Each structure stands twice: as C-alpha cells, then as structure tokens.
C-alpha cells in the first residue's frame, strides 16, 4: 500500500520536508504507519505528540488506511 504523508509545523522542521511518500506491505492501520514512520524517521520519536488526519479528517490509531490515502501529521495546533 502507498500513502502520501503531509508534514506541518515543528514536524516539518524535524523531518525537513513537507511531504513524504511511503510504500509498504506492512501499512494497515494508522498505528502501523506510525511504527513504520518512527523506524524510517527516528528524529520523529523526539516529537511523538501529534495527531493524525486522513483525507483531511482527524482519525484514531485504529483507523484502517486505504491505498493512496493522504495522511497528515498534525502537531499541537496554535492558531488563533
């Protein structure tokens, strides 16, 4: 399965990229994607306090991803 991952705020600075593409058979739920991300981008472990949105909606770790989903890593927001 392939997903696009959008990065924002402090997480974008940590990974030094606004968007990454991940393709792996081990992706199923959001939780499994997180595990994969922490493996590939170990710097992310220093900042694991983020939420996940899929296709522009907040989801839980148990959410089951589909091929070509757009996943966003949402660090604590600070608008307003």
């Amino acid at each position, binding site marked *: 399965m392939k997903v696009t991952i959008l990065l*924002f705020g402090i997480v974008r600075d940590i990974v030094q990229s606004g968007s990454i593409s991940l393709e792996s058979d081990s992706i199923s739920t959001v939780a499994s994607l997180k595990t994969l991300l922490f493996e590939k981008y170990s710097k992310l472990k220093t900042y694991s306090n983020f939420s996940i949105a899929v296709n522009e909606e907040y989801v839980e770790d148990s959410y089951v991803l589909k091929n070509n989903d757009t996943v966003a890593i949402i660090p604590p927001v*600070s*608008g*307003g």
Partner: protein
Amino acid sequence: MKKENISILLTSEKLNIQTCYDFVQDSSCGGIALFVGTVRNLTKEKEVTQLDFSSYGPMAEKEMQKIAAQALEKFDILKIAIHHVEGELNIGDIPVIIAVSAPHRKAAFAACQFAIDTLKETVPIWKKEHFTDGEVWVNSTP
C-alpha cells in the same frame, strides 16, 4: 443549520472587522459578540518580533466550517463568521476574527467563546514566533 449563515475565510490578506460584522448583522438580532485576536509583543517575557502562521489549508477550512456548524446547533444564534490569517504577521496585526449574531446577547457571547476555544484546539494552523534570538513553534515543546 443553513450554510448561508456561515462565513469561513482563511487568507493571506489583512482581516477586516467590519466585513465580519456586516456578514453577521441582521435585523432580527439584538446583539453581536466579536473576538479579535491580536499579536502580542510578549510571550513569557520574551519579545516577539514577528509571527508566521502556516496551515493545512483545506483541512483548516473544513474544521472551521465544523466549528461554525456546531455553534449554530449548540447555541441560539443567527450567523457566525470565522476568519483566520496565514502568513507573516507583525505585532498588533489580527490573526483571527470571530463574529456571532444572536437574538439575545448571552448566546452570542457563549458561541463566540466556544468558537475561539475550539479553533485553538482543533484547527490545523501553526504559529511560529520569532524572537530577537531565535524562533519557536508555539505549543510544541517536545
């Protein structure tokens, strides 16, 4: 809940209080509550020289729309405007305006507070504060 009672804006242009007021004003309402955020020059005793707001645009607009729809459901209000800026701001500039009209003022105040409180929790917008000696993503101490 009618969509025409909601005005959502995420823009890199200057926000305008009168625009928000004019949108919510209606001859059936007795009061309008507004909240205007402004850029402070001090956060924990450090001087802020500039701010950057970045957003996950499409999702931010959806979340702002959700807040407005929830406010219209929860409170006896007529119209609501939620406008937010992205990009660079200076001290005194306006990052956010929320305006709510209602037949009675209590509901207008409650909905306005609900909207700004929720916006600060859920809308994917991030503020980076620039100081004379560095910069920091607000709320993001790892």
